[in-house]
């Protein structure tokens, strides 16, 4: 097609950025945050007991596993891929690390915890290497490659566990999953990482916990993933690969190696989610993350990532996970059948996609 200057589209002024009307653009970018605030206000009014520090701490602890699954998946989605296997990689990791920890019963607690964590990481690296090799080097579409891994991980998890949960009966383990960073008792005072001295029996009920450890873990992990995505060369390449792989490769970005690392990262975060599950429930189960894969993708979508790649942020995923966790928590407090939460979350996902499309239409 030769260019004929007379038939060109009207010229635009070239030193003028095409700028969306400021306020609407800001609102459309921040809609998830606004929606989260609206949800919190709504439940605070209609659900007695919702607006309460201890309830908020529970929301934070409850969303830990979902968020950690979403942290790695955010990288995959920005790279224009999808990892369907995270739910069962998480299940497999929970079973494998629970088995190791169960086998080490009687050893000192730190040994048990580190062995469990190492096992979980090993599962994550292995699953990620398989996904990464398939997607990056063998060019299998991510949907198919990770569907295969999903099934393999599911099968291995059931074979290892035999079906029922693998439980660990080591004293003190529960603290790492359900404990708090700080405790306060009206008489015994403040203590860090453990109940105040001399508190036992019925007095335990008067102890208040602050900063659930699950929240501490996700703050650390989210900070790490946020740094990796937002502030490093690798993170920049993730966006480039998702935005225009051809351009990225012409610019000298190693396409395959970048994709490979993205999938390893995603499976590793799924395996860490499995380990958090083990700490929380003192056991592992094959289908621990079954329903969570889609919820984590939902959180990412609500957080403003584009399913076509190239766009998304860790902060967005955190907001998305909070939206889902608040809806679940609010509905439970209201005494509404918990199954309705799926309907509510589904409606929010559809809304998120519509908002995203409207953004695209008004501000290309």
């Amino acid at each position: 097609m030769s260019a004929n200057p007379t038939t060109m589209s009207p010229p635009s002024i070239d030193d003028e950025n095409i700028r969306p009307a400021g306020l609407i653009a800001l609102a459309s970018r921040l809609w998830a945050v606004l929606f989260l605030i609206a949800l919190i206000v709504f439940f605070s009014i209609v659900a007695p007991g919702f607006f309460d520090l201890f309830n908020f701490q529970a929301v934070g602890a409850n969303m830990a596993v979902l968020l950690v699954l979403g942290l790695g998946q955010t990288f995959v989605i920005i790279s224009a891929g999808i990892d369907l296997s995270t739910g069962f990689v998480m299940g497999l990791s929970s079973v494998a690390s629970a088995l190791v920890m169960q086998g080490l019963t009687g050893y000192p607690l730190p040994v048990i915890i580190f062995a469990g964590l190492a096992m979980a990481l090993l599962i994550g690296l292995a699953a990620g290497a398989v996904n990464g090799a398939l997607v990056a080097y063998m060019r299998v579409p991510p949907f198919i490659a990770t569907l295969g891994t999903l099934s393999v991980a599911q099968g291995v998890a059931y074979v290892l566990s035999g079906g029922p949960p693998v439980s660990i009966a080591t004293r003190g383990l529960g603290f790492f999953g359900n404990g708090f960073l700080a405790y306060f008792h009206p008489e015994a005072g403040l203590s860090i990482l453990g109940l105040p001295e001399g508190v036992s029996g019925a007095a335990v009920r008067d102890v208040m916990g602050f900063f659930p450890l699950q929240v501490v873990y996700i703050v650390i992990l989210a900070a790490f993933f946020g740094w990796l995505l937002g502030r490093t060369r690798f993170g920049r390449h993730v966006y480039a690969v998702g935005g225009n792989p051809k351009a990225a490769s012409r610019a000298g970005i190693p396409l395959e190696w970048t994709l490979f690392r993205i999938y390893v990262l995603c499976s590793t975060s799924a395996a860490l989610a499995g380990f958090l599950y083990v700490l929380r429930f003192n056991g592992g189960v094959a289908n621990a993350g079954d329903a969570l894969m889609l919820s984590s993708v939902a959180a990412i979508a609500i957080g403003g990532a584009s399913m076509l790649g190239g766009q998304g942020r860790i902060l967005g995923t955190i907001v998305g996970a909070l939206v889902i966790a608040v809806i679940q928590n609010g509905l439970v407090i209201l005494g509404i059948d918990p199954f309705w939460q799926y309907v509510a979350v589904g409606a929010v996902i559809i809304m998120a996609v519509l908002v995203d499309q409207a953004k695209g239409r008004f501000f290309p």
Partner: protein
Amino acid sequence: MSPLATETRTAPASIPQGPHPEGLAPVLRCRKLTKRFGGLVAVDQVDFDVYPGETVALLGDNGAGKSTLIQTVAGVHRPDGGSIELDGKEVEIRSPLQARDLGIETVFQDLALCDNLGAAENIFLGRELPGKAYRFLPGLNEARMRSEAKSVLSELHINIRNLDAPVRTLSGGQRQATAIARAVYWKARLMIMDEPTAALGVPEQKKVLSLIEALKARGVPVIVISHNMQDVFEVADRLFIMRRGRAVADLRAADTNANEVVRLMVG
């Protein structure tokens, strides 16, 4: 051999010879460069030189072999015969990345920009400057990249207000300028532009042509592929015309006119 075949064979020897600057060594020197695709000889023993600071328009009808010639120099294709010299040294160009490392920057027709990233991010794509994140972690030197991007853009008289805005929100001319600024920043020894004005409105075409002038002023030779005769005569010092894979003319722009060029292109 039929007389007709003999005549075509001898054609390259009798092409109107271009006036090469006296006493200057060519930046790019292709000798008997040949590229075949199966039975098709897309580029047939072409001698092609580019001298410092000149703008050469590469012309030809569709299928004349100009894109193949340029893609061979840019490392997209590997030649089947002949040699390529850069600043007097014979080079083997195996990939687009290697071409870039040698200082051959190509602004492809599809620009090779990441639409989701900003202008500064695109200029430094794949060559990000390392720095600190949160003052203590390894990261990127965003401030320096932004200021360098700003200065290279302003050197080229390009005004992009928000260097962080995704380049898909920029105009076609600004996008073209971003791609050119990337090449300039990384000190291109030779710049190749494939249809740089094809997708632009008239004022933006003018802007891109003035960018080519700015490159020329910096001594960077530019090879331009274009279908637009008006553009060609506006920026080119020399016209290199191809037909069915062979070089048919090498002319000073001042010595010819559009009619003659078209006649040479279609044969």
